[in-house]
């Protein structure tokens, strides 16, 4: 039955082309929102690969975004176009590999603390490596030049970010269908079992760090070409926390969760702002916005640790169930297809994972 996957791929490709083209129909503000969500989603995909699929939690994503941003900013200013984005990915991959070295000996909370330390060290380096980062003053970045054309509009950057998001998603999903991808899942579930199965755990983890770092570096490159300024403050711990929040809210170990989580984290403040304006209580909601965000994270952790993705699936199943109750004779295919968690998602549920800490 090769026709169906080919048709699905064609449909997905068409959807991506339409999404990229649609960016040019947006106004600047809308394009900026799309761009912000797409970049955040690329970063969340990278972290989801590392954490959701390979079980290595990291609090150094902010620093890796920064490494990508400074690399792309400097090379972009030197006239590199696409090369600046790829180089940012490579720089992110190398840095991620170095940050990941302690993971060969540490696990769980202990490794998370090691990444936190790496975040602080790199933040400090951003401040003192003035020839590269321009220190506290920040690196002013010229607009990106791609194939001889300067990208000047928010719409163009949104289209680029959406295109890169689609490519990244497809590549990572493809990776998970290879032996390396399957090894990620086994390592996440139990390293001893992985060893018993003949998987080189250290090499598998290193692959996860390299790929995740590359993607994170690329997200940093896309970010800096829109912001046009890279300062150390922009890549501090709160950015890492935001990315962790995205995969918690969206759903660990589920690719669509990265996009949903990114959209939620990026758009929630804007939505609260607009609701506040409509009810003329914007000033009140200014203060409540951060609190509401924190509260929602807690609620997700308590009631739906598999995130928005699982929530939407449950909703779809409930709708399908309601329809089938009304029309039992015709609704069975929809109900049958509403299986919420396939084998991959079941593996992804955090509460089923074996977590152990300490030196190994």
């Amino acid at each position, binding site marked *: 039955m090769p026709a169906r996957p080919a048709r699905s791929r064609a449909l997905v490709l068409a959807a991506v082309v339409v999404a990229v083209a649609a960016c040019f129909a947006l106004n*600047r503000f809308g394009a900026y929102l799309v761009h912000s969500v797409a970049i955040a989603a690329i970063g969340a995909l990278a972290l989801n690969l590392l954490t959701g699929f390979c079980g290595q939690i990291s609090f150094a994503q902010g620093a890796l975004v920064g490494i990508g941003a400074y690399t792309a900013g400097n090379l972009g200013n030197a006239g590199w176009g696409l090369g600046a984005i790829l180089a940012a990915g490579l720089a992110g991959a190398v840095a991620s590999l170095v940050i990941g070295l302690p993971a060969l000996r540490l696990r769980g909370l202990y490794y998370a603390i090691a990444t936190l330390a790496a975040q602080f060290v790199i933040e400090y380096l951003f401040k003192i490596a003035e020839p590269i980062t321009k220190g*506290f003053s920040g690196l002013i970045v010229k607009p990106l030049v791609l194939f001889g054309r300067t990208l000047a509009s928010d719409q163009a950057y949104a289209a680029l970010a959406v295109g890169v998001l689609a490519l990244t998603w497809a590549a990572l999903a493809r990776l998970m269908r290879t032996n390396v991808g399957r090894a990620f899942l086994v390592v996440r579930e139990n390293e001893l079992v992985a060893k018993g199965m003949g998987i080189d755990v250290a090499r598998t983890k290193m692959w996860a760090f390299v790929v995740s770092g590359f993607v994170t570096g690329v997200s940093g490159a896309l970010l800096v070409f829109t912001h046009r300024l890279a300062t150390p403050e922009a890549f501090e711990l709160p950015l890492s926390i935001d990315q962790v929040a995205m995969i918690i809210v969206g759903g660990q170990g589920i690719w669509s969760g990265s996009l949903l989580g990114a959209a939620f984290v990026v758009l929630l403040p804007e939505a609260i702002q607009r609701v506040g*304006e409509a009810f003329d209580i914007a000033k009140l909601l200014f203060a409540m916005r951060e609190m509401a965000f924190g509260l929602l994270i807690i609620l997700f952790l308590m009631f739906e640790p598999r995130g928005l993705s699982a929530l939407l699936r449950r909703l779809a199943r409930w709708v399908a169930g309601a329809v089938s109750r009304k029309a039992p004779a015709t609704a069975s295919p929809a109900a049958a297809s509403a299986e919420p968690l396939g084998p991959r998602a079941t593996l992804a549920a955090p509460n089923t994972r074996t977590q152990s800490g300490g030196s190994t």
Partner: protein
Amino acid sequence: MKRHIGRVLLAVALLAAAPALADVNVCIWGTITGPDALVNGMSYGTHDYFQYLNQTKGGIAGQKVNALLLDGRYKLDEELKIYRRCVDQENAVVINGWSTGSAKALREQVQQDAVPFVSETFSSEVLDPVKYPFVFIAGATYEQQMLIGLRAAKAAGAKKVILMHGDNEYGRAPVTVVRKSGEIEKMGLQLLDTIEFRYDAQDLTAQLARVKAANPDIVYIQSSTPQTLVILRDAAKVGLSPKLFIGNMYNISPTIPEQLGPAAEGFRAIQIYANYGDPIPAMKEIEAFKAKNTLAKQDLYYMKGWFKGKVIAAAIESAIKKNGGKAPADIKAFRKSVRDELENVKGLDVGGITPPVTFANHQGPTQARMSEVKGGKYVALGDWVNAQ
């Protein structure tokens, strides 16, 4: 319930659609919630001044002002997003932004969009009327404030100075510029040391012990109120008098004497705007507004906000008058006209908040005066001094 659902739907619709062009749209963002929210009276003051004009004069030149106040949260990505909303969705004729970072990131964009942009920063890096003709600030730069403070100290007999600053752009850049300029030595002062500290430090006892060992006549602090609170608290611990310290205009917060009490007595800071409550004409306007509205802040930073409101309103009024008494229908032409009129502001009476101002220099008042904590309040020392 239906009404509420309708409002929510309206809010969602607003996300996608741009509002209709109001008479005069002004967009203001500040740190309403965030690390430097202590000084956000600067944003509230400007917003309230436009409300005051709407309530008492029917707006500017008879046209209602739609002043939108947004929260930039002192986050660059949030500020960049708000800027696009202001330009693209709100059709703002003037934008009042906040941080140094956003002003630097946006300065090229502002030229492309040709929208007048007034920033709260005092950074000299965005002040260039030729290169950035649409960017304005509202007072003496940090470097000018530092020179005013040091000159005052020199005039009082000081010979040896130490500079203290936070480890960020705001702390480090002005100190570097002044040191490299050689102005400290030119005025006959000896720079003993420059001490950098973590901007979020909660204990600076070690740094203050270093100050004590150097025995300076004056210490100039380039930081904001929270850091100055730590410095003065720890200075008392090591036996240093608050009279030794001078801060910039962000150290003239009532919080300092309120929280430190005697440990703040004698501390001096640079004052660019009048204190809240000073017997000046602008205060009568504020009192009249306060009688019918609730003020979010009542401090010197609110005065700065009110001052900016007066300057921006004067420029908008001139632009409308030059267009025959109506706001130009073309937003691009309106923005260009307001920019030109901001530059044309000359000898404008701002109700005593500062001496009459001229904005041809894109920074307005370059005068400042020293203010000292006496009896738990800031008391002006002498008259306004021109930084230039």
